[in-house]
């Protein structure tokens, strides 16, 4: 709220000016009506907002990087080197983009699991949940396509391996991998496709899906966890979205931006040697941390599981887990206590599995 002293005559003029032209009062009314439950798990309500801020940072830094980046097989690596060492503050923009990408994926994963365990996917919020899932896939796709662009040693091989795995998907896998690669090998065609997907397709998809996500949140309000709903009326504390929650949101964004900034400053993003498609893969090559869990999982499966090829078996298993996340709002509607417990158990199992396999992959 504006303090009394600052509501000077100028302020009043500005307010009047805006009120006559924009639906200020309606918006303010809307924001004041929305309320945020206050309980011991309230921290998680900030995660979506942090993800949104990081996404905004990605858009801005990404546009700036496009000024100097060249998506051409002989110049890509050199153009990144130039951004890192010759362009004023180029290293800074690039490090921001890389760090923010990683933080964003981390925050989105935390957001997913926190909404999952608070059971915010239940009716009427199924669409919020599904659009969220699409956002996760989009984020991972951002990561996968962006990783190739510097065209350095590890990014080249990680992409090659990643696409090889994708081609194992029954029926459509081969075709998808072929189209993404633009042929049988990772080459100029791959850079062009990945670049186009990374800077044009995915941002547009994000805007649309994120818009829908936000719209649904606005329509349904913030979900109240079951234990909170059961509290007697007088014990249920709320905070107005505006101004209390929003000002705190701003503080949290500030802090998130600072974490990002300090990481960027202390550990600027490096770049490996230029990719050499004809060389052998460097020893012990690993994908980015957010693909480590499936990577490690696939590695553990024997070459043949019964009559099925090992990798295919792994892919099917992981798809089933994904399907579980898609179907959970239909399965656990909040009516049946046992279904609710099973969903929580499933989520815990997957979360622990992801953490375990990621650590395993990182350490081996």
């Amino acid at each position, binding site marked *: *709220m504006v*303090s009394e002293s600052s509501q000077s005559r100028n302020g009043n003029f500005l307010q009047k000016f805006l009120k006559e032209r924009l639906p200020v009062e309606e918006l303010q009314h809307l924001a004041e009506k929305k309320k945020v439950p206050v309980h011991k798990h309230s921290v998680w309500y900030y995660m979506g907002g942090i993800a949104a801020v990081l996404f905004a940072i990605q858009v801005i830094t990404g546009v700036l990087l496009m000024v100097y980046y060249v998506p051409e097989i002989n110049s890509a690596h050199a153009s990144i080197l130039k951004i*890192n*060492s010759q362009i*004023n*503050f*180029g*290293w*800074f923009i690039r*490090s921001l983009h890389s760090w923010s990408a990683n933080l964003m994926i981390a925050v989105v994963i935390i957001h997913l699991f926190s909404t999952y365990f608070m059971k915010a996917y239940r009716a009427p919020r199924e669409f919020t949940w599904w659009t969220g899932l699409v956002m996760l896939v989009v984020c991972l796709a951002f990561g996968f396509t962006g990783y190739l662009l510097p065209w350095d040693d590890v990014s080249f*091989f990680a992409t*090659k*391996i990643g696409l*090889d*795995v994708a081609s194992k998907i029954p029926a459509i896998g081969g075709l998808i991998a072929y189209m993404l690669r633009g042929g049988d090998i990772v080459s100029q065609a791959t850079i062009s496709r990945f670049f186009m997907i990374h800077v044009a397709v995915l941002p547009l998809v994000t805007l649309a899906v994120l818009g829908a996500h936000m719209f649904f949140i606005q329509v349904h309000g913030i979900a109240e966890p079951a234990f909170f709903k059961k509290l007697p009326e007088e014990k249920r504390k709320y*905070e107005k979205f505006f*101004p*209390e*929650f929003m*000002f*705190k949101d*701003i*503080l949290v964004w*500030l*802090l998130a*931006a*600072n974490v990002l*900034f*300090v990481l960027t*400053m*202390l550990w*600027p993003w490096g770049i490996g040697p230029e990719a050499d498609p004809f*060389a*052998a*893969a*460097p*020893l012990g*090559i690993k994908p980015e941390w957010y693909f480590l869990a499936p*990577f490690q999982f*696939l*590695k553990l*499966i024997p*070459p043949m599981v019964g009559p099925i090829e*090992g*990798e295919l078996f792994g892919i099917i298993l992981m798809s089933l887990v994904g399907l579980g996340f898609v179907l959970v709002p239909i399965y656990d509607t909040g009516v049946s206590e046992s279904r609710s417990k099973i969903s929580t158990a499933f989520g815990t199992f997957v979360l622990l599995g992801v953490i375990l396999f990621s650590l395993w992959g990182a350490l081996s």
Partner: protein
Amino acid sequence: MNYPLWVVPDLGGSWVIGIISIIHIFISHFAVGGGIYLAFAEQLAYKRKDERIYNFLKSHSRFFVLLTTVAGAVTGVGIWFSVSLVSPDGIASLIQCFTLAWAEEYLFFVAELATAFAYYYTWDRISREQHLLLARLYAIFSVFTLVIINGVLTFMLTPGKWLSSHWWFDGVFNPTYFPSLAIRLLIMLAIAGMYALVTCTRIEEPKFRTFMVRYCAKWLLPVFLLGPVCMLWFLSQVPHSVLGTIFTGIQNSGVGNFSILARALYISLVLSGTILLFAFFGPFLNPRGFTFKVAILFMICGFAATGTTEWMREMLRKPYVVYNYIYSNGIHKDEIEKIADEGFLHRGKWSTALTAATPTDEFHNGEIVFRYQCMACHTEKGYRSMKKLLGQRDEQAIISFLQILRERDPQKNNYSNIMPPLAANDAEMKSLAKYLASINTDEREKNTAHRSPASDHSISMK
């Protein structure tokens, strides 16, 4: 050289000192600023005859006195302890320069402690006028501890006229003394306000709470209004070569050794800006939503800002302990030439003793040289590790590197802004190279085995 050294693996001794110091600096700044805050707030209570403020101050001062006296004393002793173990030769010189100042510092500290306890135990036991007097006395003593220690800290960066006169007065009242005093006082007020904000979140009554939260938030204003001016004043007194290092860093941050200084500067600026915004959107605009948790986050921001700013100040004077006089490894600048002729190991009492039994063991002698001359900033395999920094250099390449490092002429030694020149005769240099070459053997081997002969990248391969 003259004293035994404490080897801290991986982390490095400088980080041990650094971590303790940053905590100590935060607490001591908080003690001084808090002293001023208590005096002013008590005056406010006295003027307004407001019991609520008195009650607030009583609960506020409980934890305050406990924290500043106990944690302040423990970390203060911790600094002395760790410094004398990690860099005994450097601290020996500092003590010799300022025996008198250290003694006075100690006196004021004792006086500060005594008034702090008197202040706390006489709440409601003596008249309000008398208690206010005690509060003011406490504020004055704590400011005086700053007045002295600030002299020593600034001396290290800008010894100024002391370098020729060697008069302690010139050393204490050196070129950056007053700007630094001003900046520190401003920061102290801000930290005091931040801490009082934490206590404010405990106030139940909404109206009074809003009043106090806004009052405390205002303690951050001075540093934002006057801080930048004082900072420029400070920088104008710093040697040009030091500023040069910052600006080279600004031009090519992200690459090169110098850039860390510029990057630390950015962090410090951005964190300070964050605190300003935080104070505005948090306690000022939204006093009701300013909860305990948020206040703690705010404190953490303050801690991070203080930490990086002090870290930057420390780095500014690298590679010296006392600028242009003693290097970080305790070697005096004007000794280097003599050491290059006569040798290093026999100059110090302890290093002589360590090498006496094994005069021909090159590896062992090299390790001793490394410990006394390089370990102030490097570790073998951990922080700023020799293993990484030497990279794939073999013994011959290391000798060429050390030959450059031994040059006293900055034109020939491009490391002169970040490292002290190597002070050693030829034999000692060769010993050092032998020792160093044993650290990075795996790095060299990695080079030859970098690529695997197999070309199968399928991940299901076993």
